[in-house]
């Protein structure tokens, strides 16, 4: 009995090497819990926003009968929503085009109460197309300039004043507020860029006659998707350059050195043994760029976007130039319009939440794609 309670450390339940509960340890624990709580609070806020928008937007986008997706919402452009009541107590809610049809069909049914809700009917096809076009123009331009710049910075340049200048410019460009890009785009792309025209406008900065009735007039493209796309491209340039550069940097020096040692020229080694391996990175860069650009409102407010447009971009256009020089509806601007510029009522809610839901899901899935691509390629490619 007495022997059993020995000082044998193996029999002791307590581990002698275990950490002792000290005041410092307790404090550490509390502080790290606080830090952790702060971190998760941020994520909770994000989750709250997502859940709120998804739960309120889903009823507009989905329906309970096949095909389960509200196809009208995706294939029609925004319209005025009409609600009215006939004298015999029947209640109607229709888009404006259907409403006019109904009026023609039932000319003798007196209407007692009639309300119109701007932008609350129809769907979001127009804005979706507009955003896609703007993003496309932007990404083509930005990727071209961004890729070449990053190739220069990473492959050709040596340290010097020019390089410092370029780096400084890129860094400062990244910090410029988006609305300032909007102002710049308005002044430069809408009102200054040279165009070929037979009849120069009066406000043109200067006109160079080219003979044959043609002029090169510095009068700008006007408010159009070209101007908007270029403005966005300028804005997203730093992001694209940074992402492209990262992908070029990830390729080991050995690839270039081996290629050069085999007698390839500089350009041959870049085009054959650097660019192909940088392709996934560039894909990531462009997805990242699209994510950034698709959500921007301020730069396209004065350069490209329209709140309301009856026709889709490809209707009533006879030339390629005409196609690109028209203004478009765009999702972010559409959301701004329905959120702040129309009188609010219960009828505007489905359109509001539906648009925001679709837009957010689109942008967030692109963002998720870019995060995924980055992680995926980083993991897969091991030199």
């Amino acid at each position, binding site marked *: 009995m007495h022997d059993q309670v020995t000082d044998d450390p193996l029999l002791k339940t307590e581990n002698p090497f275990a950490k002792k509960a000290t005041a410092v340890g307790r404090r550490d624990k509390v502080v790290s819990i606080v830090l952790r709580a702060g971190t998760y609070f941020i994520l909770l806020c994000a989750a709250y926003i997502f859940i709120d928008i998804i739960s309120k937007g889903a009823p507009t986008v989905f329906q309970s009968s096949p095909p389960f997706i509200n196809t009208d919402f995706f294939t029609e452009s925004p319209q005025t929503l009409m609600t009215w009541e006939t004298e015999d107590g029947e209640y109607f809610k229709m888009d404006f085009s259907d409403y006019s049809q109904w009026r023609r069909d039932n000319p003798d049914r007196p209407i007692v109460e009639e309300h119109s809700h701007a932008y609350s009917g129809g769907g979001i096809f127009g804005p979706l197309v507009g955003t896609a076009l703007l993003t496309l123009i932007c990404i083509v331009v930005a990727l071209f300039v961004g890729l070449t*710049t990053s190739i220069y910075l990473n492959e050709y340049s040596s340290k010097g004043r020019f390089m410092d200048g370029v780096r400084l410019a890129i860094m400062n460009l990244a910090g410029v507020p988006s609305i300032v890009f909007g102002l710049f785009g308005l002044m430069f792309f809408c009102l200054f860029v040279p165009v070929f025209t037979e009849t120069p406008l009066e406000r043109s900065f200067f006109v160079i006659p080219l003979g044959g009735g043609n002029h090169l007039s510095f009068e700008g493209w006007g408010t159009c998707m070209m101007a908007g796309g270029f403005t966005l491209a300028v804005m997203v340039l730093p992001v694209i350059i940074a992402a492209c550069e990262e992908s070029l940097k990830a390729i080991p020096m050995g690839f270039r050195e081996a290629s050069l040692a085999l007698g390839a020229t500089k350009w041959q080694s870049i085009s054959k043994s650097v660019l192909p391996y940088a392709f996934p990175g560039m894909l990531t860069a462009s997805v990242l760029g699209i994510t950034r650009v698709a959500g921007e409102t301020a730069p396209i407010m004065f350069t490209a976007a329209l709140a309301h447009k009856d026709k889709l971009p490809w209707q009533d256009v006879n030339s390629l130039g005409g196609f690109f020089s028209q203004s478009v509806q765009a999702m*972010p601007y559409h959301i701004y319009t329905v*959120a702040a510029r129309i009188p609010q009522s219960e009828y505007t809610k489905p359109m509001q939440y539906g648009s925001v839901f679709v837009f957010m899901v689109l942008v967030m899935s692109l963002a998720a794609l870019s995060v995924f691509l980055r992680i995926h390629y980083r993991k897969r490619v091991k030199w």
Partner: protein
Amino acid sequence: MSSSENKEADGSSAEESGQFRNRGFKILGLSKQDLIRIFFGGNASVAIVVLVLICVFLAREAFMFFPDHHHDLKAYRQSGQEYVDFASDEIKAHTNLYSSLNIAYFAEVNRTAKTEDTILRAYRALMANLENVTAKTWGRFERDLDRLEDVEDDLSDAKEDLEELDPEAEDFAAKQQELNQEIESLSSEQSQLTTRVEELREKLKKEVDLVIDSEEVWNMGVGAEEPPAESKAKLREAVLLSASPEIDDEPEYITGLKAVSKEKKAKAAEELSDFKDTVKAMQASIRPLKSFQSELRSIASKNKSEIVSFSTAAGRKEAWEKGAQNAATEEERQRMAAEAEKVVIKEPDYAALNQPFYESLGKHAELIAPIEVEMAQLYAQIPSKKEVQTKSAKENLDRAAVFYERFENTVSKNREEIKEWRHDKPITVPESVTAFLFGRNWISNSSWHDFYGILPIFTGSFLISIIALTVAVPFAVSAAIYVNQLAPHREQNFIKPAIEFIEAIPSVVLGFFGILVFGETLRAVSQVEWLQWVPGFPMAERLTILNAGLLLAFMAIPTIFTLTEDALNNVPQAFTENSLAMGASKLQTVFRVVVPTAVSGVLAAILLGFGRIIGETMVVLLVAGNKIKIPDFTEGLGVIAQPAHTMTGIIAQELGEVDQGSLHWRALFMVGMVLFCISLLVNFAAQKVLKKLSKI
């Protein structure tokens, strides 16, 4: 030019000459490789070119603002508007003082009937909401009820007719049948209507129940304090009573409450009659000055239009003349030429225009002196803070003290300035610059004079940014420390992409969320009893500085987080290891070694976060409330519950609606220039901080 000599070059020549020089075709002495290099270099310089272009194009519009603004200010002075605004300032200062005292007085009076008023307010809110919800059903119900009455009348008429029908008449049978048919159709309609009315009545009842039971409405009306359960039940009864279709009169309970409230207030007013008289006397004292000012105002307006018409006359004449030259028909040409003739370019006689103002100098002094004395007397009579009981009255007395001082200052300052004032005193260049940079008003499209002072919108932007930063920095930095230093690997891999994900939320979506959801939530939170210590709570508005600040904080968190995390990552591993080896605990290492080493990076992250916040447009445009006024700092920290406008927001809101090249347009570009400079400054500062403070 030199291409031909190299055309024949191929592999054999290199060995012969033994030189490793570039071969292939050349343009302007540049080989293909050089050209490719130049092509890439040229694209790289696009960034520089764009930055320069932004500077050039913004600056071009922005700096043309100053000459125009100078011209505008000159017209303001020459027309005498500046002189009139001396009096306007005094009146405004007086109004501020008077209205804060007035609010204090009513807060005191209304305090006595607080319970009754709360219930009455809830009643009104409920009824308003009820009206909204039931409007449609109600309209249909009333229509059907009317129709039912008509039908019943018709029915009884028809029945009477049937009874009075003369059996001997020859068409008796036909008429009887006709009437019977009519009665039949009417009674079927009657029964239809009756059932519908009953249905609608049911529906109305349901709707009423729905409104009464929804918590939201109760909170909206009742506010921070809940009335006792007993009165809540009574109130419910009253609402039900007034909602029932047959009763038009107000329920007795409500009438009773109103009477009690009125009685109590009357009693309180009697007790506070001194206060009331003082406030009333204050209101009366300014009247002579007001009528004096309005007289001068109309003269100045006339002067202004004359001056403006003179400054545009030359342009108009030219336009008519040009039109006459290009006119299609002779008739048109003559008409235009006549119009051109009509435009007289004659400089107004500024001295004569301003004569009335110089003459009124004495009168102004005569008017303001007794007002000042009277105000001093009256101000001494108002009750002290100790004598009042409500929070609102106390706050407003505090504000009144500030406003009284401001009034005194305005009067004494104006006394000097009015003496100095000359309509022909030239406006110096610094004056027109400071009028923009320190102007306290941004007023466009006004019938009096447009002011372009950046201070109101700058303060708005700045306040919002400060709130956003104070909220975002602790969260972002603590999250970065946690993720980088403390979290297990698995958790890191989850949190980092998640926070990056937040960065991708489009700002317009956040703004939308703020305007439709968060604003309402925040206001509801601000009504909660135990949160009343927070300055500015309870908030009356949905769209406020606080709302915008919190949303922007959420936007800035990913930026600050990512950059801080990078900075922490750059701290050499050896630092941490050494610290741990010395026996420091994990947290001691983090806070005494890692964070201080990375502090430059953290500061740079905060600065760049600030840059992102101040340049953000959509959230503030949607959520900040868009009120162009310097927030009222007399409320202390409660200023965060006020709406404001921002530099980014004002460009987005107003640029679409102004004429290209107008003063307003240029003012907006000037604001853009200020934003651009701020962003460059912030970037510059961030780089400096990184270089200077970097310890590694």
